[in-house]
């Protein structure tokens, strides 16, 4: 790989701004290695087997057998490699004037540009093979649920990090004038907030809903085989077991070495055993957060967190796996992550409020009001409608966010910042009308979190509906700019722009405890 390494060095010497650059020349091969391996396997197997059997490498009957086949193989290989080289040659990218632009394709050309200040998230992904070669893929997400707006595969790792820092700095509004062009943007320092020990991750997987489902399924299978006196049913289970093993492996691979850090650029998440990922969520890009606790996790007090981010898209799309904010963590971890997502909780005693949101249960007595530690819960009259959840279902509006808790066994707490609410709807079916309750649904961008206040009393629900509309309006007015650092000092843009390279990247954390770069070992 040394020639490619040299090429990369020569690319790095150019300035960052305005220059059209290419991805690493090895990238088509790293991306398309399956095709190459398939061609190689198909035509090399024969020779390999002969060598194994102690015969000569070239088939002695080659002339009589199939020279055409071999020629065809060579042509196929040449075409593939040629295609790879062409696709590499015609893929170019540029970061300039507030845009990132990517041109691809030689027969069907595509030019794409995305506004930097519209960045919703930026990820550096390293599949195993790319990691071996020190390469990384950069994904740039905008609010267009589904596929990444810009993917640059592959860049040398340090170049990818450099590009990420540049993009984030521009998006934050740090570098604005043309005089700043060309200078290297230092990567923002970061402060590691928490990491998940592998033991806890394994434990959480073993105690997950998945395991319960598997045990139930296994019990059913054993029961059926006993009843039907048929052993063959175990054979039918083999594919299922393989599938389950793969699912566990992928969860483990994804959650391994999970580290969350905070930097002025936003929240940094890193994880992965073989394939590693480093996600960056700039401030204010998280649309909704969910903290959930499956029933068995309650023994150890574990929680998991998911987020809605506009660029990651709905479940089932490519980005869906990246919506995990915390695979498993204790309550202090949850609180810490929550403080990153929602720096200003908008209440005086966030600890108590969030604890009530996570585990609280209103008193069930006849005299108790529909309130528990500030959470407005389902009124007592609707206890038949929600026999388990009525003491748990509730909401609490702080100055900055709406907290929604639900689930007696399956505890969840959903947090939606006020300025992130898209629209809202009150729902009331005939049964709910009979009990004078209503559901309030908050609409956020596509993702795993779907905030819904279950069975609130009609008066409280309507009041919340009205107030929430006003609160969202107020919060949006305060949020003036997409450029999160420009927001801090909107009065004096020139001064801010001049002063912010330092401010944005070091002063936010005057004494970063851990500045070491733990990127993707």
């Amino acid at each position, binding site marked *: 790989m040394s020639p490619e390494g040299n090429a990369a060095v020569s690319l790095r010497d150019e300035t960052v701004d305005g220059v059209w650059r290419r991805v690493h020349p090895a990238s088509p091969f790293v991306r398309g290695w399956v095709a190459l391996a398939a061609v190689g396997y198909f035509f090399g197997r024969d020779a390999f087997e002969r060598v194994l059997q102690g015969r000569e490498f070239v088939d002695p009957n080659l002339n009589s057998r199939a020279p055409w086949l071999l020629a065809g193989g060579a042509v196929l290989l040449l075409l593939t490699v040629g295609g790879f080289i062409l696709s590499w040659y015609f893929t170019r990218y540029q970061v300039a004037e507030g845009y990132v632009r990517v041109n691809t394709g030689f027969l069907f050309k595509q030019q794409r540009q995305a506004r930097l200040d519209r960045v919703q998230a930026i990820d550096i992904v390293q599949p195993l093979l790319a990691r071996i070669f020190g390469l990384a893929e950069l994904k740039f997400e905008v609010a267009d649920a589904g596929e990444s707006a810009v993917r640059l595969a592959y860049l040398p790792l340090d170049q990818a990090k450099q590009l990420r820092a540049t993009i984030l700095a521009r998006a934050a509004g740090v570098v604005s004038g043309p005089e700043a062009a060309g200078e290297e943007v230092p990567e923002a320092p970061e402060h590691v907030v928490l990491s998940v020990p592998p033991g806890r991750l394994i434990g959480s997987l073993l105690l997950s809903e998945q395991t319960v489902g598997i045990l139930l399924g296994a019990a059913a299978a054993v029961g059926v085989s006993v009843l039907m006196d048929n052993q063959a049913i175990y054979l039918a289970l083999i594919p299922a077991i393989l599938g389950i093993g793969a699912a566990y492996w992928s969860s483990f691979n994804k959650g391994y070495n999970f580290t969350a850090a905070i930097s002025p650029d936003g929240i940094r998440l890193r994880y992965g055993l073989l394939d590693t990922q480093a996600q960056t969520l700039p401030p204010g890009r998280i649309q909704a957060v969910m903290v959930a606790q499956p029933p068995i996790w309650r023994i150890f007090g574990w929680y998991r967190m998911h987020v809605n981010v506009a660029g990651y898209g709905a479940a089932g799309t490519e980005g869906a796996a990246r919506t995990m904010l915390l695979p498993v963590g204790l309550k202090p971890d949850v609180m810490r992550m929550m403080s990153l997502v929602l720096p200003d909780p908008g209440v005086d005693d966030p600890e108590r409020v969030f604890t009530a949101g996570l585990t609280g249960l209103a008193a069930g007595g006849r005299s108790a009001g529909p309130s528990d530690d500030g959470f407005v819960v389902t009124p007592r009259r609707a206890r038949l409608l929600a026999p388990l959840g009525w003491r748990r279902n509730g909401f609490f509006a702080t100055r900055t966010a709406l907290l929604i808790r639900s689930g007696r066994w399956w505890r969840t707490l959903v947090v939606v910042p006020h300025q992130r609410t*898209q*629209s*809202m*709807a*009150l729902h009331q079916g005939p049964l709910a009308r009979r009990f004078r309750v209503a559901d309030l649904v908050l609409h956020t961008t596509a993702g795993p979190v779907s905030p819904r206040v279950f069975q609130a009393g009609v008066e409280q*629900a309507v009041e919340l509906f009205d107030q929430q509309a006003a609160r969202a309006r107020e919060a*949006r007015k305060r949020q003036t700019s997409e450029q999160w650092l420009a927001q801090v000092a909107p009065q004096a843009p020139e001064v801010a722009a001049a002063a912010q390279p330092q401010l944005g990247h070091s002063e936010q954390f005057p004494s970063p405890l851990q500045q070491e770069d733990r990127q993707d070992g």
Partner: protein
Amino acid sequence: MPTAAIDPPGVQWLRVSPKYVTVRLVEWAIGNVLLLVVLSLPLLCVLLGWWRWPPLWLAVTVPAVVLVLALWRLVLIPRQVRAIGYAERDDDLLIRRGIFFQRTMVVPYGRMQYVDVAVGPVERSLGLCTLKLHTASAGTNAHLPGLPAEEGARLREQLSARGEARLAGL
């Protein structure tokens, strides 16, 4: 106006055109007449003695139940249309609908990504249109059917202008 327990207080609802009932009736007829014809085929075959299965009671019951449900929905259509309402407030648009399953929705102007006006063949012949609002959330299923064409155009312009004035990102 049916029960409005979940409507915010003090809102003056604007109603959609009563002609929208016709649109709903046509939709109802197309859907249900076809379904009924298909479901009545076994009854016909049994009555003519071509089929021995299904038994007569089943062949009668299935279309009968479907017919009753369809008629029930038919009776509800005028009330459902009357239950659709919208109100322009200073900063957001309210949309309500439904009698049994009521829904009241608020869409802030600053959150609108784009506004659609769609016209189907039946709507066109009656001079109506359907307004659809899109926010960044797929959950915002805000459509307002049965608006007179000029009201739809006015609303579209109004919403776009107000959206621009209050535009916020995500």
